[in-house]
């Protein structure tokens, strides 16, 4: 993990390092089902998925949202995260890539903490938005 950046050194408009997962598999969905407790069969049961009018199973939104959250934690570190918000747009299917990006939009102070706010987006290999989101993280200040 990279060292946590200093608040003073972060710039509004700064792009955060990309996080990506290539070619989601059905096994990825099953692992996340076991890890999270989300056993909605629409994500792992082909028969149920087809009966629901879908060509096959698709990723839990929260799996994609979890991958997207890594943009924040790999930039600021897990302890820094103050809030994380996502809105789900379209679904990810087996074979899809999940490409996650973030930008710092604002630096501010609240309750004695130095904070950065940012926008997040996860897209698939076709550039379609899977999730849009935002975060707030607290960073250390230079003495």
């Amino acid at each position, binding site marked *: *993990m990279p060292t946590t950046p200093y608040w003073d050194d972060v710039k509004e408009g700064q792009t955060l390092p990309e996080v990506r997962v290539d070619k989601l598999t059905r096994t990825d969905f099953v692992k996340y089902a076991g*890890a*999270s407790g989300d056993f909605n069969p*629409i994500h792992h049961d082909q028969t149920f998925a087809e009966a629901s009018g879908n060509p096959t199973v698709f990723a839990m939104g929260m799996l994609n949202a979890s991958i997207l959250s890594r943009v924040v934690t*790999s930039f600021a570190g897990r*302890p820094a995260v103050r809030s994380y918000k996502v809105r789900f747009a379209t679904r990810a299917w087996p074979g899809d890539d999940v490409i996650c990006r973030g930008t710092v939009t604002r630096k501010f102070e609240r309750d004695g903490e130095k904070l950065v706010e940012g926008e997040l987006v996860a897209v698939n290999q076709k550039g379609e938005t899977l999730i849009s989101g935002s975060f707030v993280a607290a960073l250390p200040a230079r003495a």
Partner: protein
Amino acid sequence: MPVDKSYIGKSGEPVTMHIERGKIREFARAIKDEDPLYFDEDRARREAGGIMPPVTFLQTLSHWDDGRGRLKLPFDLKRVLHGEQEYEFLKPIYAGDALTAVSRIVDIYEKPGRRGGTMTFAVTETEYKNQRGELVARARAVGIETGQVVKD
């Protein structure tokens, strides 16, 4: 069938979830996160005060809820979508903590679906307190029942 709006303001029963190291590792692996702070206890203690669960880990509450924690709306599972999810972290959460969560339905509303039918939105807020009674996190979820089976 419109959903009964009398659900608004109702809470489920409190659910206690134990934040376990093994489950944190499993979750970190499932989201392909190799951050040593989830795996190396000594390093996590030095750098973060302990092993903290990933940002979206509170979703695992469903492992601890026997069904009484969450008010079950009469939604059709084949037509349910997750619309939005938000977490707010007020104090650190560590492996070894026991969190008690209370979920409340704060809003239910309807909109006409773009492809016909009526979409029903349900907003749930969950508060998580630790074993010392400190409010450590809040979650807000928007669930959607679409007017018909979902097509992108």
